[in-house]
């Protein structure tokens, strides 16, 4: 009886779906990431109204229309500070930020680094397709050296950003890489990222079937191999540096550390300042501080 009731109340994938139909290209890696995210939310039984997902701008971020949660579709590169503001005032929400490589490692790179060292309890999923998809095929900060794109017809001259190494040196406490085509593996990384109390980066290799003919599903498949969780920074650094014929995926590094707000000595653990009564604030005591 109680089991039945529980089964009935149990959230399913459809609880996270909206009436809208995704407009991504057929075969886009984003579908796998969306599915992995939904599965992770189902498995963790996070109520849609208790999840706040903040997107930046990019093909990936059009997902805001296809995931049934509280959503904020923010500006290009700015998902992380918006997510931080919400998490600061309401730590009860499960806060997830989502963006692409251009969004998070290009225009929003500063916020990414500071979010790592800030260590708020936010999960950050980056759809890393090594190309600008929404603007139709320009080089991105993670495009390989020599990649020929519409904006770099002779090949990219700069060396790519290494998000895993960057997160590690910026003191992030959960650092993982998944691939869009292995939904079950990615779901596990996202679940563990949400459960991790701290800033969790999940960089996802996401083939763009329309604009990136180099880093394809086959290209990814030929190179990736799975690694297990590390708690040694040095070992994690070694794996982080690996990129080319072999690309490690899985959990690179995890560390239990106080989150930012744990170090507030004026607020209780996970205290929601939005629940404070602000109808009768008395400032008369503060006025006495003045001459």
């Amino acid at each position, binding site marked *: 009886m109680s089991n039945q009731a529980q089964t009935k109340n149990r959230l399913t994938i459809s609880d996270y779906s*909206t009436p*809208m139909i995704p407009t991504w290209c057929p075969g886009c890696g984003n579908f796998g990431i969306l599915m992995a995210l939904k599965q992770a939310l189902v498995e963790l039984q996070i*109520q*849609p*109204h*208790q999840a*706040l997902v*903040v997107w930046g*701008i990019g093909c990936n971020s*059009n997902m*805001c*229309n296809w995931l*049934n*949660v*509280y*959503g*904020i*579709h*923010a*500006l290009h590169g*700015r998902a992380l*500070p*918006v*997510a*931080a*503001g*919400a*998490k*600061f*005032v*309401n730590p*009860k*929400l499960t806060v997830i930020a989502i963006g692409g490589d251009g969004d998070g490692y290009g225009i929003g790179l*500063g*916020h990414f680094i*500071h979010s790592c060292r800030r260590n708020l309890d936010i999960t950050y999923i980056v759809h890393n397709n090594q190309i600008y998809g929404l603007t139709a095929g320009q080089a991105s900060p993670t495009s390989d050296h020599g990649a020929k794109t519409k904006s770099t017809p002779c090949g990219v001259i700069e060396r790519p950003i290494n998000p895993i190494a960057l997160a590690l040196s910026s003191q992030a406490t959960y650092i993982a890489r998944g691939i869009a085509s292995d939904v079950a593996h990615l779901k596990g990384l996202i679940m563990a990222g949400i459960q991790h109390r701290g800033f969790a980066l999940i960089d996802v290799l996401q083939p763009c079937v329309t604009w990136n003919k180099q880093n394809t599903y086959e290209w990814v498949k030929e190179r990736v191999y799975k690694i297990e969780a590390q708690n040694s920074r040095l070992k994690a650094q070694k794996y982080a540096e690996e990129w080319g014929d072999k690309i490690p995926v899985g959990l690179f590094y995890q560390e239990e550390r106080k989150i930012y707000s744990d170090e*507030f*000595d*004026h*607020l209780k653990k996970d205290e929601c*300042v*939005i629940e*404070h009564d*602000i*109808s*009768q*604030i008395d*400032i*008369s*005591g*503060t*006025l006495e501080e*003045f*001459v």
Partner: protein
Amino acid sequence: MLLTGNEAIALGALKAGLKFYAAYPMTPATSILHFLASHEHQYKIIVKQTEDEIAAMNMVIGASVAGARAMTATSGGGFALMVESLGFGAMIETTLVCAVVSRPGPATGMPTWSAQGDLRFLTHAAPDEFPRIILAPGDAVEAYQLTFKAFNLADQYQVPVLILSDKLLGESFFTVEKSQMLEGDYQNSKFKIQNFNQNYERYKVTESGVSARSIPGTRGHLFIANSDEHDEFGYSEEDSENRVRQMSKRMRKLETIVKDDVMDAPKWYGPKNADITLICWGSGKGACLEVMSNVKLVNILHFSHIYPLDIDRVKRELAKIKKSICVEANYSGQFADYLYEKTGFKVDRKLCKYDGRPWFMEELAANVNF
């Protein structure tokens, strides 16, 4: 008691129930950050110094969407960095408050000096058009009261509210009565949620332009705060009719704000039938009052509720003027031109000072003539 304009802004925010303040240090707005940081414990608020102004504005937006009274402050250059996000805040109809404490620009300009050169910048900041409210206090008491009011207006109309101050007001000391700093009625329009568990339309088209707001965590009231043009639920939507509906809904708030009588009339100081009226706004009030009480037989018309302008009401006041001089601390006479644009009223003379120094009584008095 003795306090600065910046401290008055901080006190007004605390009184209004500020819960989250994020800012990047920038002279001459920084002392607001210092004051609030030193009162973080007492008022159980969160004060965050951010990596840049863009982060500050976006954190404030996130905190606002989540249901906190939130604010940032900066000077002109920092505000320039916030501008795209300001438009984002307006697009998703959140309730943010931002104080801009001006200094001479452009670029780094003169960081420790004063100017009123950002008026036109604030009235037009961010791409395309959206409703906003701009308040420009004339002294410390007004800075306190208008900051308090800014939070109420932001909640009531779900628009960005900008407080335009400057170095002169922000860092000068004022003597005020404590009683003036304790006034203020709290109003809250945050949780007007109807039709529980029905299809909740966060951006429902209404006559006033304002729609019922829910906050994340509330069951049955999911929505997307979408920087893309969106429909009533927040879903991205580029249909032409929807665009017109949502754009008009947002812009209609400007009429509602004026109709609701919340934009106070400009204030008169001095004799009724003076031959010369000094028109001023924001921090210009102090020097004009000094001239009036010590030197010349003039009166003053001071504007603190800058945008949107209650045009009919302002025109009625302007009609009482015999000869006018508009006193400002910028190069072109931005307020005089703004007044002309909105009301057709042309000031007889502009007195513009843009050397970074405040108007001194003696030099102003020497220039008050025809």
